[in-house]
Protein backbone atom coordinates (compact mmCIF):
# COMPACT_ATOMS: atom_id res chain seq x y z
CA UNK A 1 0.00 0.00 0.00
CA UNK A 2 2.79 2.34 0.88
CA UNK A 3 4.43 1.75 -2.48
CA UNK A 4 1.17 2.69 -4.20
CA UNK A 5 1.06 5.96 -2.31
CA UNK A 6 4.71 6.71 -3.04
CA UNK A 7 4.11 6.31 -6.78
CA UNK A 8 0.85 8.27 -6.60
CA UNK A 9 2.62 11.11 -4.84
CA UNK A 10 5.29 11.23 -7.51
CA UNK A 11 2.67 11.30 -10.29
CA UNK A 12 0.94 14.26 -8.63
CA UNK A 13 4.29 15.97 -8.15
CA UNK A 14 5.07 15.53 -11.84
CA UNK A 15 1.58 16.67 -12.78
CA UNK A 16 2.06 19.85 -10.82
CA UNK A 17 5.52 20.37 -12.29
CA UNK A 18 4.61 19.88 -15.92
CA UNK A 19 1.50 22.02 -15.52
CA UNK A 20 -0.98 19.26 -16.29
CA UNK A 21 -2.92 20.05 -13.13
CA UNK A 22 -2.97 23.75 -13.82
CA UNK A 23 -3.93 23.40 -17.47
CA UNK A 24 -6.71 20.92 -16.82
CA UNK A 25 -8.18 22.90 -13.94
CA UNK A 26 -8.14 26.16 -15.87
CA UNK A 27 -9.65 24.56 -18.96
CA UNK A 28 -12.48 22.94 -17.03
CA UNK A 29 -13.15 26.06 -14.95
CA UNK A 30 -13.17 28.34 -17.99
CA UNK A 31 -15.52 26.12 -19.96
CA UNK A 32 -17.76 25.49 -16.96
CA UNK A 33 -18.06 29.18 -16.16
CA UNK A 34 -18.78 30.18 -19.73
CA UNK A 35 -21.39 27.44 -20.08
CA UNK A 36 -22.97 28.56 -16.83
CA UNK A 37 -23.42 32.14 -17.89
CA UNK A 38 -23.86 31.83 -21.62
CA UNK A 39 -25.97 28.73 -21.18
CA UNK A 40 -28.65 30.61 -19.30
CA UNK A 41 -29.26 32.89 -22.29
CA UNK A 42 -31.43 30.52 -24.37
CA UNK A 43 -33.55 29.41 -21.42
CA UNK A 44 -34.11 32.94 -20.31
CA UNK A 45 -33.35 34.18 -16.87
CA UNK A 46 -35.99 32.13 -15.10
CA UNK A 47 -34.21 32.34 -11.82
CA UNK A 48 -35.21 28.91 -10.62
CA UNK A 49 -33.43 25.64 -11.22
CA UNK A 50 -30.44 27.47 -12.64
CA UNK A 51 -28.17 24.75 -11.30
CA UNK A 52 -30.16 22.05 -13.09
CA UNK A 53 -29.53 23.76 -16.41
CA UNK A 54 -25.85 23.90 -15.53
CA UNK A 55 -25.84 20.20 -14.75
CA UNK A 56 -27.20 19.44 -18.20
CA UNK A 57 -24.61 21.53 -19.99
CA UNK A 58 -21.72 20.44 -17.80
CA UNK A 59 -22.47 16.77 -18.21
CA UNK A 60 -22.39 17.21 -21.99
CA UNK A 61 -19.08 18.98 -21.60
CA UNK A 62 -17.82 16.12 -19.43
CA UNK A 63 -18.68 13.50 -22.01
CA UNK A 64 -16.55 15.25 -24.61
CA UNK A 65 -13.71 16.54 -22.52
CA UNK A 66 -12.98 14.29 -19.56
CA UNK A 67 -12.41 11.12 -21.58
CA UNK A 68 -10.05 13.08 -23.81
CA UNK A 69 -8.09 14.51 -20.88
CA UNK A 70 -8.00 11.13 -19.15
CA UNK A 71 -6.70 9.37 -22.26
CA UNK A 72 -4.12 12.10 -22.81
CA UNK A 73 -2.70 11.61 -19.32
CA UNK A 74 -2.88 7.84 -19.31
CA UNK A 75 -2.05 6.59 -22.79
CA UNK A 76 1.70 6.85 -22.32
CA UNK A 77 1.84 5.97 -18.62
CA UNK A 78 3.47 2.61 -19.29
CA UNK A 79 4.74 2.58 -22.85
CA UNK A 80 6.06 6.14 -22.47
CA UNK A 81 8.05 5.32 -19.37
CA UNK A 82 9.38 2.25 -21.10
CA UNK A 83 10.50 4.28 -24.10
CA UNK A 84 12.14 6.91 -21.95
CA UNK A 85 13.89 4.18 -19.98
CA UNK A 86 12.58 5.24 -16.58
CA UNK A 87 10.47 2.10 -16.18
CA UNK A 88 13.58 -0.08 -16.28
CA UNK A 89 14.98 1.59 -13.20
CA UNK A 90 11.67 1.77 -11.35
CA UNK A 91 11.06 -1.96 -11.76
CA UNK A 92 14.49 -2.77 -10.34
CA UNK A 93 13.17 -1.39 -7.05
CA UNK A 94 11.31 -3.41 -4.43
CA UNK A 95 7.90 -2.71 -5.93
CA UNK A 96 5.45 -4.99 -7.73
CA UNK A 97 4.20 -4.04 -11.14
CA UNK A 98 0.58 -3.88 -10.03
CA UNK A 99 1.66 -1.42 -7.35
CA UNK A 100 3.25 0.78 -10.02
CA UNK A 101 0.03 0.69 -12.04
CA UNK A 102 -2.25 1.32 -9.08
CA UNK A 103 -0.01 4.13 -7.85
CA UNK A 104 -0.14 5.82 -11.22
CA UNK A 105 -3.90 5.35 -11.31
CA UNK A 106 -4.32 6.94 -7.89
CA UNK A 107 -2.07 9.84 -8.88
CA UNK A 108 -3.72 10.51 -12.23
CA UNK A 109 -7.18 10.17 -10.75
CA UNK A 110 -6.27 12.65 -8.02
CA UNK A 111 -5.17 15.15 -10.66
CA UNK A 112 -8.36 14.70 -12.64
CA UNK A 113 -10.57 14.80 -9.54
CA UNK A 114 -8.91 17.97 -8.32
CA UNK A 115 -9.39 19.68 -11.69
CA UNK A 116 -13.03 18.57 -11.96
CA UNK A 117 -13.97 19.55 -8.41
CA UNK A 118 -12.34 22.91 -8.70
CA UNK A 119 -13.46 23.65 -12.26
CA UNK A 120 -17.08 22.60 -11.85
CA UNK A 121 -17.17 23.80 -8.27
CA UNK A 122 -16.27 27.26 -9.56
CA UNK A 123 -19.35 27.21 -11.78
CA UNK A 124 -21.65 26.26 -8.91
CA UNK A 125 -20.05 28.79 -6.60
CA UNK A 126 -20.47 31.51 -9.22
CA UNK A 127 -24.17 30.70 -9.48
CA UNK A 128 -24.61 30.77 -5.72
CA UNK A 129 -22.77 34.07 -5.42
CA UNK A 130 -24.78 35.74 -8.18
CA UNK A 131 -27.87 35.02 -6.15
CA UNK A 132 -29.61 32.17 -7.89
CA UNK A 133 -31.87 30.18 -5.63
CA UNK A 134 -30.66 26.61 -5.44
CA UNK A 135 -32.58 23.96 -3.55
CA UNK A 136 -31.19 20.90 -1.81
CA UNK A 137 -32.28 18.51 -4.52
CA UNK A 138 -30.31 20.42 -7.13
CA UNK A 139 -27.24 20.30 -4.94
CA UNK A 140 -27.54 16.54 -4.68
CA UNK A 141 -27.90 16.25 -8.45
CA UNK A 142 -24.89 18.52 -8.92
CA UNK A 143 -22.84 16.53 -6.44
CA UNK A 144 -23.59 13.27 -8.17
CA UNK A 145 -22.82 14.84 -11.54
CA UNK A 146 -19.37 15.85 -10.33
CA UNK A 147 -18.82 12.47 -8.69
CA UNK A 148 -19.86 10.52 -11.77
CA UNK A 149 -17.74 12.80 -13.96
CA UNK A 150 -14.73 11.76 -11.92
CA UNK A 151 -15.79 8.14 -12.35
CA UNK A 152 -15.99 8.66 -16.11
CA UNK A 153 -12.47 10.06 -15.96
CA UNK A 154 -11.34 7.01 -13.99
CA UNK A 155 -12.79 4.74 -16.68
CA UNK A 156 -10.83 6.37 -19.44
CA UNK A 157 -7.66 6.47 -17.37
CA UNK A 158 -8.00 2.70 -16.92
CA UNK A 159 -8.72 2.20 -20.62
CA UNK A 160 -5.69 4.34 -21.46
CA UNK A 161 -3.49 2.15 -19.25
CA UNK A 162 -4.77 -0.95 -20.96
CA UNK A 163 -3.75 0.50 -24.33
CA UNK A 164 -0.44 1.64 -22.87
CA UNK A 165 0.31 -1.80 -21.44
CA UNK A 166 -0.46 -3.57 -24.71
CA UNK A 167 1.16 -1.56 -27.47
CA UNK A 168 4.82 -1.30 -28.43
CA UNK A 169 5.33 2.43 -28.79
CA UNK A 170 3.92 5.79 -27.81
CA UNK A 171 2.74 6.77 -31.26
CA UNK A 172 0.55 3.70 -31.54
CA UNK A 173 -0.79 4.29 -28.04
CA UNK A 174 -1.75 7.86 -28.93
CA UNK A 175 -3.44 6.75 -32.14
CA UNK A 176 -5.45 4.06 -30.44
CA UNK A 177 -6.39 6.42 -27.61
CA UNK A 178 -7.82 8.92 -30.08
CA UNK A 179 -9.65 6.10 -31.84
CA UNK A 180 -11.19 4.98 -28.57
CA UNK A 181 -12.29 8.51 -27.80
CA UNK A 182 -13.91 8.91 -31.22
CA UNK A 183 -15.59 5.54 -30.89
CA UNK A 184 -17.14 6.02 -27.47
CA UNK A 185 -17.92 9.71 -27.66
CA UNK A 186 -19.09 10.13 -31.25
CA UNK A 187 -19.34 7.05 -33.41
CA UNK A 188 -21.05 4.67 -31.02
CA UNK A 189 -24.07 6.88 -30.38
CA UNK A 190 -24.47 7.81 -34.03
CA UNK A 191 -24.34 4.18 -35.03
CA UNK A 192 -26.81 3.27 -32.30
CA UNK A 193 -29.15 6.03 -33.39
CA UNK A 194 -28.86 4.89 -36.98
CA UNK A 195 -29.71 1.33 -36.02
CA UNK A 196 -32.72 2.43 -33.99
CA UNK A 197 -34.04 4.53 -36.85
CA UNK A 198 -33.59 1.79 -39.43
CA UNK A 199 -34.94 -0.90 -37.11
CA UNK A 200 -38.10 1.00 -36.18
CA UNK A 201 -38.38 -1.00 -32.94
CA UNK A 202 -38.71 -4.32 -34.73
CA UNK A 203 -35.81 -6.31 -33.34
CA UNK A 204 -34.07 -3.96 -30.94
CA UNK A 205 -36.14 -4.40 -27.82
CA UNK A 206 -35.87 -2.43 -24.62
CA UNK A 207 -33.52 -4.92 -23.00
CA UNK A 208 -31.23 -5.04 -26.03
CA UNK A 209 -31.09 -1.25 -25.99
CA UNK A 210 -30.25 -1.34 -22.30
CA UNK A 211 -27.40 -3.73 -22.93
CA UNK A 212 -26.12 -1.64 -25.83
CA UNK A 213 -26.15 1.48 -23.67
CA UNK A 214 -24.26 -0.29 -20.89
CA UNK A 215 -21.53 -1.20 -23.38
CA UNK A 216 -20.54 2.44 -23.74
CA UNK A 217 -19.41 4.16 -20.54
CA UNK A 218 -20.32 7.61 -21.82
CA UNK A 219 -23.91 6.45 -22.34
CA UNK A 220 -23.98 5.02 -18.85
CA UNK A 221 -22.79 8.37 -17.57
CA UNK A 222 -25.37 10.22 -19.62
CA UNK A 223 -28.20 8.04 -18.38
CA UNK A 224 -27.00 8.35 -14.81
CA UNK A 225 -27.03 12.14 -14.87
CA UNK A 226 -29.73 13.08 -17.32
CA UNK A 227 -32.39 10.62 -16.32
CA UNK A 228 -31.56 10.02 -12.69
CA UNK A 229 -33.02 13.25 -11.44
CA UNK A 230 -36.48 14.33 -12.47
CA UNK A 231 -35.80 18.05 -12.83
CA UNK A 232 -32.65 17.52 -14.78
CA UNK A 233 -34.21 15.06 -17.17
CA UNK A 234 -37.00 17.44 -18.04
CA UNK A 235 -34.41 20.07 -19.01
CA UNK A 236 -32.21 17.69 -20.91
CA UNK A 237 -34.89 16.36 -23.18
CA UNK A 238 -34.01 12.89 -22.00
CA UNK A 239 -37.30 12.33 -20.21
CA UNK A 240 -38.60 10.27 -23.13
CA UNK A 241 -35.54 8.06 -23.20
CA UNK A 242 -35.68 7.73 -19.46
CA UNK A 243 -39.07 6.12 -19.68
CA UNK A 244 -37.93 3.61 -22.25
CA UNK A 245 -34.77 2.68 -20.43
CA UNK A 246 -35.30 0.67 -17.32
CA UNK A 247 -31.85 0.84 -15.76
CA UNK A 248 -31.82 1.82 -12.12
CA UNK A 249 -29.22 4.06 -10.56
CA UNK A 250 -27.41 1.20 -8.75
CA UNK A 251 -27.13 -0.71 -12.02
CA UNK A 252 -25.66 2.36 -13.74
CA UNK A 253 -23.23 2.91 -10.88
CA UNK A 254 -22.20 -0.72 -10.98
CA UNK A 255 -21.65 -0.41 -14.74
CA UNK A 256 -19.40 2.62 -14.20
CA UNK A 257 -17.42 0.72 -11.55
CA UNK A 258 -17.08 -2.33 -13.78
CA UNK A 259 -15.90 -0.13 -16.65
CA UNK A 260 -13.08 1.07 -14.38
CA UNK A 261 -12.11 -2.18 -12.73
CA UNK A 262 -12.11 -4.51 -15.73
CA UNK A 263 -9.75 -2.43 -17.92
CA UNK A 264 -7.56 -1.73 -14.90
CA UNK A 265 -7.27 -5.42 -14.05
CA UNK A 266 -6.56 -6.28 -17.70
CA UNK A 267 -3.91 -3.55 -17.83
CA UNK A 268 -2.27 -4.97 -14.69
CA UNK A 269 -2.30 -8.42 -16.25
CA UNK A 270 -0.81 -7.23 -19.54
CA UNK A 271 1.82 -5.18 -17.73
CA UNK A 272 2.85 -8.05 -15.47
CA UNK A 273 3.46 -10.30 -18.47
CA UNK A 274 5.37 -7.72 -20.38
CA UNK A 275 9.11 -7.97 -20.86
CA UNK A 276 11.29 -4.92 -21.13
Amino acid at each position, binding site marked *: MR*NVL*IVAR*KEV*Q*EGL*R*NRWVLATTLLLAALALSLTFLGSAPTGNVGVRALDVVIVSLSSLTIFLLPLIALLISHDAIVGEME*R*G*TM*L*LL*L*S*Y*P*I*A*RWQVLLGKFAGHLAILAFATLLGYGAAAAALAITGSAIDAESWVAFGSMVGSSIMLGAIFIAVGYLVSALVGNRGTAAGIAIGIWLLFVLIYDMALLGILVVDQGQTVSGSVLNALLLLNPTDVYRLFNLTGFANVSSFSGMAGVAQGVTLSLPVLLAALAAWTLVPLALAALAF*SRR*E*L
Partner: protein
Amino acid sequence: MTATVELHHVAKRFGKVEAVRDVSFDLPEGETVALVGHNGAGKTTLLKLMLGLIRPTAGSIRVLGDDPSAGEFTARRRLGYLPESVSFNTGLTGRETLAFYARLKREPMRDALVLLERVGLTHAADRRVGTYSKGMRQRLGLAQALLGAPRVLLLDEPTTGLDPALRQSFYEIVQELRGGGSTVLLSSHALTELEERAGRVIIMNRGVKVADGTLDDLRRLARLPTRIRLRVADGGFPHVSNWLGPISDWRRINGHMIEIDARPEEKIDILRRATGDGAAVEDLDVFPPTLDELYAHFLRSQEMAP
Protein backbone atom coordinates in the same frame (compact mmCIF):
# COMPACT_ATOMS: atom_id res chain seq x y z
CA MET B 1 31.66 -17.69 0.84
CA THR B 2 27.97 -17.71 0.05
CA ALA B 3 26.80 -16.82 -3.40
CA THR B 4 24.51 -13.81 -3.68
CA VAL B 5 23.70 -14.37 -7.33
CA GLU B 6 23.35 -17.82 -8.91
CA LEU B 7 22.65 -18.63 -12.54
CA HIS B 8 22.11 -22.21 -13.66
CA HIS B 9 22.00 -23.02 -17.36
CA VAL B 10 20.17 -19.84 -18.16
CA ALA B 11 18.95 -19.27 -21.69
CA LYS B 12 16.88 -16.46 -23.13
CA ARG B 13 15.56 -16.12 -26.62
CA PHE B 14 13.70 -13.21 -28.15
CA GLY B 15 11.81 -14.72 -31.03
CA LYS B 16 14.50 -16.21 -33.23
CA VAL B 17 17.38 -14.47 -31.53
CA GLU B 18 19.16 -16.41 -28.83
CA ALA B 19 20.36 -13.59 -26.62
CA VAL B 20 21.82 -15.85 -23.93
CA ARG B 21 22.69 -19.54 -24.28
CA ASP B 22 23.29 -21.89 -21.37
CA VAL B 23 25.09 -19.50 -19.04
CA SER B 24 25.94 -20.60 -15.50
CA PHE B 25 27.92 -18.79 -12.83
CA ASP B 26 27.82 -17.89 -9.16
CA LEU B 27 28.78 -14.53 -7.78
CA PRO B 28 30.09 -14.76 -4.20
CA GLU B 29 29.95 -12.09 -1.53
CA GLY B 30 32.68 -9.51 -1.47
CA GLU B 31 33.73 -9.99 -5.06
CA THR B 32 33.95 -7.54 -7.91
CA VAL B 33 33.15 -9.25 -11.16
CA ALA B 34 33.45 -7.76 -14.61
CA LEU B 35 31.01 -8.87 -17.26
CA VAL B 36 32.67 -8.07 -20.56
CA GLY B 37 31.42 -8.39 -24.10
CA HIS B 38 30.63 -6.49 -27.30
CA ASN B 39 27.35 -4.74 -27.69
CA GLY B 40 24.78 -7.47 -28.17
CA ALA B 41 26.85 -10.10 -26.39
CA GLY B 42 24.10 -10.62 -23.84
CA LYS B 43 25.37 -8.55 -20.91
CA THR B 44 22.31 -6.37 -20.51
CA THR B 45 20.06 -9.39 -21.04
CA LEU B 46 21.80 -11.16 -18.16
CA LEU B 47 21.36 -8.14 -15.90
CA LYS B 48 17.68 -7.85 -16.81
CA LEU B 49 17.23 -11.54 -16.07
CA MET B 50 18.76 -11.02 -12.63
CA LEU B 51 16.34 -8.18 -12.02
CA GLY B 52 13.29 -10.12 -13.17
CA LEU B 53 12.56 -7.61 -15.92
CA ILE B 54 12.51 -10.51 -18.34
CA ARG B 55 12.00 -14.21 -17.71
CA PRO B 56 14.48 -16.90 -18.76
CA THR B 57 13.48 -19.33 -21.50
CA ALA B 58 15.33 -22.06 -19.62
CA GLY B 59 17.39 -22.40 -16.46
CA SER B 60 17.03 -20.83 -13.06
CA ILE B 61 18.23 -17.67 -11.36
CA ARG B 62 18.54 -16.76 -7.69
CA VAL B 63 19.36 -13.29 -6.45
CA LEU B 64 19.80 -12.94 -2.68
CA GLY B 65 17.55 -15.96 -2.25
CA ASP B 66 14.72 -14.63 -4.45
CA ASP B 67 13.62 -15.99 -7.77
CA PRO B 68 13.27 -12.79 -9.78
CA SER B 69 11.41 -14.40 -12.67
CA ALA B 70 8.59 -15.39 -10.28
CA GLY B 71 8.11 -11.73 -9.40
CA GLU B 72 9.71 -11.99 -5.95
CA PHE B 73 11.16 -8.65 -5.05
CA THR B 74 11.78 -8.36 -1.31
CA ALA B 75 15.52 -8.81 -1.82
CA ARG B 76 15.59 -5.84 -4.19
CA ARG B 77 15.79 -3.59 -1.17
CA ARG B 78 19.37 -4.72 -0.89
CA LEU B 79 20.07 -4.50 -4.58
CA GLY B 80 21.35 -1.55 -6.55
CA TYR B 81 21.07 -1.25 -10.30
CA LEU B 82 22.42 1.31 -12.69
CA PRO B 83 21.03 0.83 -16.20
CA GLU B 84 23.01 1.56 -19.31
CA SER B 85 22.33 5.21 -20.23
CA VAL B 86 20.16 5.84 -17.20
CA SER B 87 17.24 8.22 -17.58
CA PHE B 88 15.04 10.03 -15.12
CA ASN B 89 11.86 12.01 -15.31
CA THR B 90 13.06 15.40 -16.44
CA GLY B 91 10.48 17.46 -14.57
CA LEU B 92 11.63 16.69 -11.04
CA THR B 93 14.74 17.99 -9.33
CA GLY B 94 17.67 15.80 -8.42
CA ARG B 95 16.67 15.87 -4.77
CA GLU B 96 13.05 14.95 -5.50
CA THR B 97 14.13 12.14 -7.78
CA LEU B 98 16.46 10.64 -5.21
CA ALA B 99 13.86 11.12 -2.46
CA PHE B 100 11.38 9.10 -4.52
CA TYR B 101 13.78 6.20 -4.91
CA ALA B 102 14.83 6.41 -1.25
CA ARG B 103 11.18 6.13 -0.20
CA LEU B 104 10.74 3.02 -2.31
CA LYS B 105 13.71 1.45 -0.54
CA ARG B 106 12.52 2.77 2.84
CA GLU B 107 15.75 4.66 3.29
CA PRO B 108 15.85 7.89 5.27
CA MET B 109 16.32 11.07 3.24
CA ARG B 110 19.42 11.86 5.30
CA ASP B 111 21.29 8.97 3.73
CA ALA B 112 20.12 9.95 0.28
CA LEU B 113 21.51 13.44 0.75
CA VAL B 114 24.83 11.99 1.90
CA LEU B 115 24.97 10.04 -1.36
CA LEU B 116 24.11 13.14 -3.35
CA GLU B 117 27.04 14.87 -1.68
CA ARG B 118 29.25 11.91 -2.38
CA VAL B 119 28.66 11.97 -6.13
CA GLY B 120 29.13 15.73 -6.10
CA LEU B 121 25.61 16.81 -6.98
CA THR B 122 24.66 18.79 -3.88
CA HIS B 123 25.07 22.08 -5.72
CA ALA B 124 22.61 20.93 -8.40
CA ALA B 125 20.19 19.15 -6.07
CA ASP B 126 17.39 21.66 -6.62
CA ARG B 127 17.73 21.90 -10.35
CA ARG B 128 15.52 19.87 -12.63
CA VAL B 129 17.06 16.69 -13.92
CA GLY B 130 16.20 17.90 -17.43
CA THR B 131 18.93 20.52 -17.13
CA TYR B 132 21.60 17.98 -16.11
CA SER B 133 24.49 17.01 -18.37
CA LYS B 134 25.03 13.38 -19.24
CA GLY B 135 27.75 13.04 -16.62
CA MET B 136 25.49 14.50 -13.96
CA ARG B 137 22.69 12.12 -14.85
CA GLN B 138 25.13 9.25 -14.62
CA ARG B 139 26.17 10.47 -11.16
CA LEU B 140 22.56 10.70 -10.05
CA GLY B 141 22.14 7.17 -11.39
CA LEU B 142 25.06 6.04 -9.32
CA ALA B 143 23.65 7.72 -6.21
CA GLN B 144 20.32 5.91 -6.59
CA ALA B 145 22.11 2.58 -7.14
CA LEU B 146 23.99 3.07 -3.88
CA LEU B 147 20.85 3.72 -1.83
CA GLY B 148 20.44 1.32 1.06
CA ALA B 149 24.02 -0.02 1.14
CA PRO B 150 23.25 -2.73 -1.43
CA ARG B 151 24.57 -6.26 -1.02
CA VAL B 152 24.40 -6.77 -4.75
CA LEU B 153 25.26 -3.96 -7.11
CA LEU B 154 24.58 -4.41 -10.82
CA LEU B 155 26.19 -1.70 -12.88
CA ASP B 156 25.67 -1.61 -16.64
CA GLU B 157 28.48 0.35 -18.30
CA PRO B 158 28.88 2.50 -15.20
CA THR B 159 31.81 4.70 -16.08
CA THR B 160 30.69 5.98 -19.47
CA GLY B 161 30.26 9.72 -19.26
CA LEU B 162 32.24 10.11 -16.05
CA ASP B 163 35.30 12.32 -15.99
CA PRO B 164 38.58 10.82 -14.70
CA ALA B 165 38.26 12.29 -11.21
CA LEU B 166 34.77 10.97 -10.76
CA ARG B 167 35.76 7.64 -12.23
CA GLN B 168 38.37 7.42 -9.53
CA SER B 169 35.92 8.16 -6.76
CA PHE B 170 33.48 5.74 -8.38
CA TYR B 171 36.02 2.93 -8.06
CA GLU B 172 36.73 3.97 -4.48
CA ILE B 173 33.04 3.55 -3.66
CA VAL B 174 33.02 0.15 -5.36
CA GLN B 175 36.10 -0.87 -3.38
CA GLU B 176 34.45 0.17 -0.15
CA LEU B 177 31.29 -1.78 -0.89
CA ARG B 178 33.29 -4.85 -1.73
CA GLY B 179 35.13 -4.48 1.56
CA GLY B 180 31.75 -4.53 3.27
CA GLY B 181 30.92 -7.87 1.65
CA SER B 182 28.86 -6.67 -1.30
CA THR B 183 28.91 -8.32 -4.68
CA VAL B 184 29.62 -5.86 -7.46
CA LEU B 185 28.94 -6.79 -11.06
CA LEU B 186 30.30 -4.33 -13.60
CA SER B 187 29.38 -4.73 -17.21
CA SER B 188 31.55 -3.22 -19.87
CA HIS B 189 32.21 -3.50 -23.58
CA ALA B 190 35.98 -3.42 -23.15
CA LEU B 191 38.29 -4.90 -20.58
CA THR B 192 40.51 -1.81 -20.50
CA GLU B 193 37.60 0.23 -19.14
CA LEU B 194 37.90 -1.71 -15.91
CA GLU B 195 41.57 -0.94 -15.39
CA GLU B 196 42.29 -4.25 -13.70
CA ARG B 197 39.95 -3.47 -10.86
CA ALA B 198 37.80 -6.54 -11.11
CA GLY B 199 38.91 -9.60 -9.22
CA ARG B 200 37.20 -11.82 -11.72
CA VAL B 201 36.24 -11.46 -15.36
CA ILE B 202 33.42 -13.15 -17.25
CA ILE B 203 33.67 -12.71 -21.00
CA MET B 204 30.51 -13.07 -23.05
CA ASN B 205 30.29 -13.39 -26.81
CA ARG B 206 27.07 -13.83 -28.79
CA GLY B 207 25.20 -14.99 -25.74
CA VAL B 208 27.75 -17.58 -24.67
CA LYS B 209 30.14 -17.41 -21.74
CA VAL B 210 33.57 -17.79 -23.30
CA ALA B 211 35.83 -17.19 -20.30
CA ASP B 212 35.49 -16.92 -16.56
CA GLY B 213 38.30 -16.39 -14.06
CA THR B 214 40.71 -13.91 -12.53
CA LEU B 215 42.78 -11.85 -14.92
CA ASP B 216 45.79 -14.02 -14.04
CA ASP B 217 43.83 -17.18 -14.79
CA LEU B 218 42.80 -15.76 -18.12
CA ARG B 219 46.35 -14.75 -18.98
CA ARG B 220 47.56 -18.26 -18.21
CA LEU B 221 44.79 -19.80 -20.24
CA ALA B 222 45.29 -17.54 -23.20
CA ARG B 223 49.08 -18.15 -23.34
CA LEU B 224 49.49 -14.92 -25.20
CA PRO B 225 53.05 -14.00 -26.12
CA THR B 226 54.86 -11.22 -24.33
CA ARG B 227 56.35 -8.69 -26.70
CA ILE B 228 60.01 -7.90 -26.12
CA ARG B 229 61.66 -5.05 -27.97
CA LEU B 230 65.41 -4.88 -28.23
CA ARG B 231 67.53 -1.98 -29.40
CA VAL B 232 70.51 -3.50 -31.06
CA ALA B 233 73.90 -1.74 -31.12
CA ASP B 234 75.30 -0.58 -34.45
CA GLY B 235 76.46 -3.42 -36.57
CA GLY B 236 74.89 -6.00 -34.29
CA PHE B 237 72.31 -7.21 -36.73
CA PRO B 238 74.20 -9.82 -38.66
CA HIS B 239 75.02 -11.60 -35.41
CA VAL B 240 71.62 -11.49 -33.76
CA SER B 241 70.96 -15.19 -34.12
CA ASN B 242 74.38 -15.96 -32.63
CA TRP B 243 73.60 -14.56 -29.22
CA LEU B 244 69.82 -14.70 -29.24
CA GLY B 245 69.67 -18.37 -30.15
CA PRO B 246 67.00 -20.08 -32.22
CA ILE B 247 63.78 -18.11 -31.97
CA SER B 248 61.17 -18.44 -34.61
CA ASP B 249 59.16 -15.35 -33.97
CA TRP B 250 61.23 -12.25 -34.30
CA ARG B 251 61.20 -9.41 -36.77
CA ARG B 252 63.11 -6.24 -37.53
CA ILE B 253 61.21 -3.08 -36.93
CA ASN B 254 63.79 -0.65 -38.25
CA GLY B 255 67.56 -0.21 -38.48
CA HIS B 256 68.25 -0.84 -34.84
CA MET B 257 65.16 -2.45 -33.29
CA ILE B 258 63.88 -5.99 -33.23
CA GLU B 259 60.68 -7.30 -31.75
CA ILE B 260 60.16 -10.78 -30.35
CA ASP B 261 56.85 -12.47 -29.52
CA ALA B 262 57.91 -14.62 -26.59
CA ARG B 263 55.77 -17.50 -25.42
CA PRO B 264 55.30 -17.56 -21.65
CA GLU B 265 57.74 -20.43 -21.09
CA GLU B 266 60.56 -19.01 -23.22
CA LYS B 267 60.28 -15.43 -21.98
CA ILE B 268 62.83 -15.67 -19.18
CA ASP B 269 65.33 -17.53 -21.37
CA ILE B 270 65.19 -14.89 -24.02
CA LEU B 271 65.61 -12.08 -21.54
CA ARG B 272 68.58 -13.86 -20.00
CA ARG B 273 70.28 -14.24 -23.34
CA ALA B 274 69.48 -10.72 -24.43
CA THR B 275 71.07 -9.27 -21.32
CA GLY B 276 73.95 -11.81 -21.14
CA ASP B 277 77.55 -11.35 -22.27
CA GLY B 278 78.10 -10.87 -25.94
CA ALA B 279 74.62 -9.58 -26.66
CA ALA B 280 74.75 -6.35 -28.58
CA VAL B 281 71.70 -4.90 -26.83
CA GLU B 282 71.55 -1.26 -25.84
CA ASP B 283 68.04 -1.12 -24.48
CA LEU B 284 65.11 -3.40 -23.81
CA ASP B 285 61.35 -3.08 -23.30
CA VAL B 286 58.90 -5.74 -22.20
CA PHE B 287 55.20 -5.48 -23.00
CA PRO B 288 52.92 -8.00 -21.30
CA PRO B 289 49.74 -8.76 -23.26
CA THR B 290 47.24 -5.94 -22.81
CA LEU B 291 43.71 -6.47 -21.60
CA ASP B 292 42.46 -5.71 -25.09
CA GLU B 293 44.62 -8.42 -26.59
CA LEU B 294 43.46 -10.84 -23.93
CA TYR B 295 39.85 -9.97 -24.65
CA ALA B 296 40.34 -10.27 -28.40
CA HIS B 297 41.97 -13.65 -27.90
CA PHE B 298 38.96 -15.09 -26.12
CA LEU B 299 36.54 -13.70 -28.66
CA ARG B 300 38.60 -15.19 -31.49
CA SER B 301 38.96 -18.55 -29.83
CA GLN B 302 35.21 -18.86 -29.47
CA GLU B 303 34.54 -17.81 -33.03
CA MET B 304 36.90 -20.47 -34.34
CA ALA B 305 35.18 -23.13 -32.28
CA PRO B 306 32.21 -24.73 -34.06
